[in-house]
């Protein structure tokens, strides 16, 4: 369906202008300098903003957005996700200034190939902050968020049911030293679906019902009778309390009687107890959990570090956690060094060597599906399979969690291609065996190493062929 897009020109800038009820075609906005959203409906406006900010294309998600606000619907989250609110088109001058600054800063950003989904989200968020000259990543209490807190530039990348993963990503970024966190709040999430919206109730320890009756226990000193307050009702006068054992009227608390404890009776199973159990019922999945078994999480307020600022510009290559000491591989730095040596060796010896990559292009889909633990296991298996198919003099490294780099030394291009092809097939088979119905999309390429060109150049040439999703 073809969508009509209105344009507002302001000096050298083209604003893409969305009005009520127009569906937003995010691809169309790439060509504009900024976006103005004018929806009288809050939900529509929200939807539009989130659609842009969650887009995978940098040219889309970094786009300056302004909302044209007639009624007061800009909440704290929206405020963080847009670059300004305008009340009439005469104010466009201010917006234009803001947009220019963002566009200018965005030009600093070096293009990088995305690695794991987490590093991609981190990069994206860092870049968003950088382009807006912001240095803090603040949690916003937000009832529409699954965990009750929203980190706008990160959370918007997750579907509602996956929102708890935002905290994992933040931890990853903190571990990498890209951001530093400061305690903000402790929260407890449903241990089944990690939802933060829980109903806390006092329930019966026997049957879990919250249909409870609580009564004071009354101790009558003169006769040592003790029982719930209802034992002391006087049938003639509702305001009097009469001891069921000695028939005396209770006179004065502390003198002839006291209330040493409280006792509960369950209306459902009739059991008696003094300590109720506090349970939290998840409003989303209905799991009823003892509060001690809820999943605790720490919400932090983050600050960009110099390393984080640098990473915003150059991109987060891959995180240590992604690929810590994967047995059988070397890290990227070592790989680069060894590649340099190989090139030097080629200059003195008459040998053919090759570099290659194998890329799993639908890795994001797979990794999201299988979760973090399974991903590490998969990568380990992957390396195992690969390692068994090549010689020990060949070197493997991860360029990202979806891209393997190879240095296949002292081998003809034909042999190298055969090896890489074989490994690709093995990987497809491995993923198919482990994750039913998942078809891995694998691309690979082998390049003969050229002793006259720098290793950086050659790697760049090689990886430029990586098929991006």
């Amino acid at each position, binding site marked *: 369906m073809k969508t009509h897009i209105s344009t507002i020109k302001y000096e050298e800038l083209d604003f893409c202008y969305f009005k009520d009820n127009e569906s937003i075609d995010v691809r169309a906005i790439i060509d504009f300098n900024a976006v103005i959203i004018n929806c009288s409906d809050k939900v529509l406006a929200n939807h539009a903003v989130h659609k842009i900010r969650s887009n995978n294309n940098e040219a889309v998600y970094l786009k300056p957005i302004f909302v044209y606000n007639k009624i007061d619907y800009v909440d704290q989250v929206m405020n963080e996700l847009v670059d300004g609110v305008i009340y009439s088109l005469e104010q466009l001058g201010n917006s234009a200034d803001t947009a220019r600054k963002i566009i200018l800063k965005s030009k600093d950003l070096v293009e990088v190939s995305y690695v794991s989904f987490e590093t991609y989200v981190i990069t994206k968020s860092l870049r968003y902050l950088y382009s807006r000259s912001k240095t803090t990543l603040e949690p916003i209490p937000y009832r529409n968020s699954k965990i009750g807190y929203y980190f706008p530039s990160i959370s918007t990348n997750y579907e509602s049911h996956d929102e708890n993963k935002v905290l994992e990503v933040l931890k990853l970024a903190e571990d990498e030293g890209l951001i530093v966190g400061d305690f903000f709040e402790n929260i407890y999430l449903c241990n089944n679906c990690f939802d933060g919206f829980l109903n806390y109730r006092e329930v019966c320890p026997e049957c879990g019902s919250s249909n409870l009756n609580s009564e004071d226990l009354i101790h009558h000193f003169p*006769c*040592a009778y003790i029982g719930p307050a209802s034992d002391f009702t006087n049938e003639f006068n509702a305001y009097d309390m009469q001891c069921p054992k000695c028939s005396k009227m209770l006179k004065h608390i502390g003198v002839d009687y006291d209330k040493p404890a409280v006792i509960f009776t369950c209306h459902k199973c009739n059991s008696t107890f003094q300590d109720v159990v506090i349970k939290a019922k998840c409003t989303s999945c209905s799991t009823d959990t003892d509060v001690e078994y809820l999943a605790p999480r720490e919400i932090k307020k983050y600050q960009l570090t110099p390393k984080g600022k640098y990473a915003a510009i150059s991109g987060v290559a891959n995180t240590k956690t992604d690929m810590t000491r994967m047995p059988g591989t070397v890290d990227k730095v070592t790989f680069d060094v060894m590649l340099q040596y190989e090139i030097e060796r080629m200059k003195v010896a008459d040998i053919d060597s090759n570099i290659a990559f194998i890329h799993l292009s639908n890795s994001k889909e797979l990794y999201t599906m299988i979760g973090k633990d399974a991903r590490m296991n998969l990568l380990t298996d992957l390396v195992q399979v690969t390692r068994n198919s090549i010689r020990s003099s060949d070197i493997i490294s991860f360029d990202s969690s979806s891209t393997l780099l190879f240095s296949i030394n002292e081998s003809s291009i034909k042999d190298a291609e055969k090896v890489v092809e074989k490994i690709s097939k093995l990987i497809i088979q491995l993923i198919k065996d482990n994750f039913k119905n998942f078809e891995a999309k694998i691309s690979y390429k082998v390049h003969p190493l050229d002793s006259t060109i720098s290793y950086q150049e050659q790697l760049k040439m090689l990886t430029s062929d990586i098929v991006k999703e």
Partner: protein
Amino acid sequence: MISLSDFIVYWEGVGFSKFLRLFWYYFIVEAPRYLFMDFIVLMFYFVNKHLKRKKWADAKRRFFEERPLVSVIIPGKNEGKHIYKLARSLNEQTYKNFELIIVDDGSDDDTPIICKDLQKHGFIDLFLRNDVRGGKASAANLALRYTKGKYIIHFDADCSFNRDAIENVLTPFYYNSKIGAVGGNLEVRNTDESLATTLQTIEYMKSITTGRIVTSHLGIYAIISGAFGAFRKDILDQVNGWDIGPGLDGDITMKIRKKGYKIHFEPTATGLTSVPRNFSILAKQRLRWDKSIVRFRVRKHRDVFLPSESFRLSNFVSSGENILFNVILNFHWYLYGLDIIFNYSQLLMYIFLMNQLMYTTSNFLQFFMALTVVEKPKTKLKLLPYVPLMAIYNGYFLRIVRTIAHTRELLFRSSYNDPWNPPKSSNQARRLKI
């Protein structure tokens, strides 16, 4: 000092009438009551036990057929450290259909934590707690309020029980429907801990195991020990549970007697209890126990001595025996002592030694009688060397403690100041003269 030969020569020369004059107290009061009576009753007990063994087996069968729910209640303060062991010994019982209710009367230690944990793991069925201490009677009453069983067994937390203790303490209810409450047997667990505990072991063998078999057979068994007793729930409801202590175990026994029920002691239902490990703690314990005799038998339940519609000879004798031997003759002993000192001051040493000799002989005889009724009599033989000390333990130590207790209670009503009850309860009890 006098030599052995002097001693023998002297007593050979003393005639029968003078001997009786000097030791009438022993011959007329103590020997008949604690030696001859015990001997005769024990004979009857064994004959009876043999003759009625089929009836007993029948009762047990009916009990297991009915399989009533039993409520075990344990009130206490700061008893947490004992509860685990106790719960385990209860878990091992041959009779399984019981609920365990623990009432924590305002403990300030880890008791609530321990008990809540045990409840979570199913060792305790109901754990109740008074944040403010109310006294033992109120704690027992609170437990009683929430019992569901047909029979109530009252235990002390620092006891543990033989595997068949519950079935044996309940069987008498099926043996004789007039039985309203059954007292269990108690032996000492920490016999070897100190001289004090060893002597108490011998004392328990005599006064609890043997003594209660005897009083139970005579129908005058007066105190179902709070440490181990079983009650019919309907009767506890009739008497409205426990009243303010100390001595609430003797008190409730008398209240049940007054309702016309029999009180039975069951020697085969055995529990082990830890006794005070030194004489000063022991003295404090006995001061408290002994005060209650005056407070309850002489004062609160003095009506058993008065002719009235509900007058019963057994109650009269039961209480009378208690007061006579524990209170009146206790004081009389001092008169006897004075009499000897004034009238026979030169013979003091001869008389003292003879006295010791007779009481020691008596103690040996009682010890051997006790061996016929206690559990594992062979293991008790190692106590033999300590039996001679019992003359001093019983004759002087316990007697002096008892005298102090009675005097204080009679003259000063000191039990009302006993920290065993919270002051709020004691104040009310004092005001209402109960």
